[in-house]
């Protein structure tokens, strides 16, 4: 489902999402609680399992909050790493209607 862009906040992910970035990413997501969120993962060059955990936990929480959590753009690196580790984000990717 496409989010209502006007009501959404955009979270742009850093190019490198490693161990060091996990806490930062967690903090950013916590700061965005209560809003629809659009994650821009287009700049991601490298992502580790910890940051994917944080994002998936975010998606879970947003779902519980009945708010929108979508990925607007994802880099191939991001897509393929999630595929590699067996995490399916297809349902979170924004699709044009």
């Amino acid at each position, binding site marked *: 489902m496409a989010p209502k862009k006007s009501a959404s906040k955009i979270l742009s992910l850093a*190019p*490198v999402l*490693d*161990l060091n970035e*996990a*806490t930062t*990413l*967690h903090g950013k*997501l*916590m700061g965005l*609680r209560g809003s629809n969120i659009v994650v821009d993962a*287009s*700049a*991601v*060059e*490298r*992502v*580790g*399992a*910890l940051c*994917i*955990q*944080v994002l*998936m*936990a*975010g998606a*879970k*929480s947003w779902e*519980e909050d009945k708010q929108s959590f979508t990925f607007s753009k994802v*880099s*191939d*690196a991001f*897509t*393929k*790493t*999630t*595929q*590699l*580790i*067996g*995490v*399916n984000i297809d349902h979170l990717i924004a699709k044009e209607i």
Partner: protein
Amino acid sequence: MDMNEIKEIFFQECEEQLAELESGLLRLNDGDRDPETVNAVFRAVHSIKGGAGAFGLDDLVSFAHVFETTLDCVRSNKLEPTQDVLKVMLKSADVLADLTNVARDGGSVDQARSAQLIRELDALAKGEAPPQAAAVVAAPKPVAAATPAPVANDQGFMPVAFSFDDFGGEDEPLMEIPVYEITFKPKSELYSKGNEAALLLRDLSRLGEMSIHCNMDDLPPLDQMDPETAYFSWKVSIKTDKGEDAIRSVFEFAEWDCELDISSVDSGEDSGPAGDELPMQPVPFDLSALDDELEVPLGVVEEEEQIAAAETASNVVQLSAATARGADKGAAAAVAAAQNNAQQAASAAAQTIRVDLDRVDRLINLVGELVINQAMLSQSVIENDSNGVSSINMGLEELQQLTREIQDSVMAIRAQPVKPVFQRMARTVREIADITGKSVRLVTEGENTEVDKTVIDKLAEPLTHMIRNAVDHGLEMPEKRLAAGKSAEGTVKLTAKHRSGRIVIELSDDGAGINREKVRQKAIDNDLIAADANLSDEEIDNLIFHAGFSTADKVSDLSGRGVGMDVVKRSIQALGGRINISSRPGHGSVFTMSLPLTLAVLDGMVVTVAGQTLVVPLTAIVETLQPDAAAVHSFGATQRLISIRNSFCPLVDVGRILNFRATQANPVEGVALLVESEGGGQRALMVDAIQGQRQVVIKSLEANYTHVPGIAAATILGDGRVALILDVDAVVSASRGNPLHLESLAAAG
């Protein structure tokens, strides 16, 4: 980093893989039957194929694919690596190298040769090996049915889409590959220690077809989670013939930081293709160049067309072994990947990084300046400190020590073993042996002798020339060898060693040796020597280095050497080296090259000669002595000898040889440095005084000024003066009657 840079890295890695391939094949050829050697060879070809696939280098991929298939037969003990089999493989390695070079530099390969080798490889894989190969094989038929021989000609070949694990095809029961189920639950420590589950999974996927299921049940809501705690765990099913050990080796550095359970799914079962009945819901994803995605900047990834294949939703992970190159694309990821990749660890004992040579050069120059400045500072302090003891002096000593350590370390960066060059020579030997119909064995020794990279780079050309000559002209035909009571197989031996601060490379053969009569006659015919010239054997042998021999017609009439050896000599001299030859008729020849370790630091004896300061390499000096008048004897009109412990040694006045003075100095007033030269024998070099020993930084005279006969290089002393470093061998040679200026002309010519 743009695509070209990544491609360049790929080609650099290809060079390493090709070296690994050749080295492994040669080991197998020597009787090594270690499975790891076979695996290393296989991996090398597989890595090249995988990387080439990512860049769409179809010719390379196609050939590598066929090669790899045959290697897989060896790997799975279905094909015995006999000499005949390895001969084909070594030639295939050559073609693979050619294809790689063409892919990088353009040009074309010998298609006929390539096609021929594809046929030979295919035949081997089908069990149609030469009789002696087939006889040893217990079950030579497998794999063959699916061998993609026509692949090379198949224009529609899709390089990325295959893996070595599916060669067998569905109708090949003997290719049944076991399936393992792996439960992998990382602890938080795994991440905190710098490991990365994604990289481990990636390495795992290299082992074969993989399906994966991520268990996210333990993942709490965002506000209850610790972002650095491990919540995900995985169930992986992998179809691989590499065994459980290979799987465990992926987790080698992480086994204490995870829960790991590995079990074989089809033990005791003869089930169908593994992975079909997995209890998991694998996540679809693209096969292509997955490794890159973990580490390659986005801009690069976007250029890869295969990425669109995500929509193909394959439920099997197939990873190209080109993944090895991923380690270079991100420092942090590289470290983690290297730690976790047991395969890489097996082939490379130490972690390495690639550094632009220019950067190392700059660093070396700077360290050289540091050393010189440190020496100047030390000298200033010493001159201004009358007591000779002070805290400054102590500090300076420490600085000196530190500087030396830094310098040693920096120099070591550029030093590389001569192994790659030696390995290249193996190919030359093979090719020339094939052309000439001779049977030749190349023996190498001292491959790990290190020398500066600039020397290594320039060594290949003269060495290739000499090897060609050794095989073509030096060795006799098998029947002639047998008739002479030798083995039919000739031996060419290449050795490297350090001696007197230089690297000495020796090339010897057990051929017929130089036919001196013919060489002499040729020299007379070419007006190089007078018809009545009285030359020693050594002098006759050295005639082959004369340019006249390479430009004359019918040089191949010579049974010895003679083709292009002047070029070899010039190349060696351009490197600041020398080349000598010794030959025994009927027994072979030995070429000895002595090359400097350029850019190296030299421990030298600083001496004064006719008011000039010179540095004599310490490694050349045997002892120093103050000549006693009674010990000095005249010999002929100009020669003088000094008696040392009941033997006589020629005295050489360095000042006179170098034209620093017109007349010979009085030996009793000077100091004699007893030196040992490359050509053997000792000489007592007369200098006026010894200033002391010092470590000096070599500055090339050729690069900064011009070649000076008798002088090897220059250095800058602590007081800022330039001092010349003596070329001991040249001086000794000059003392034997070979004037320095002629040497100079030869070098220039």
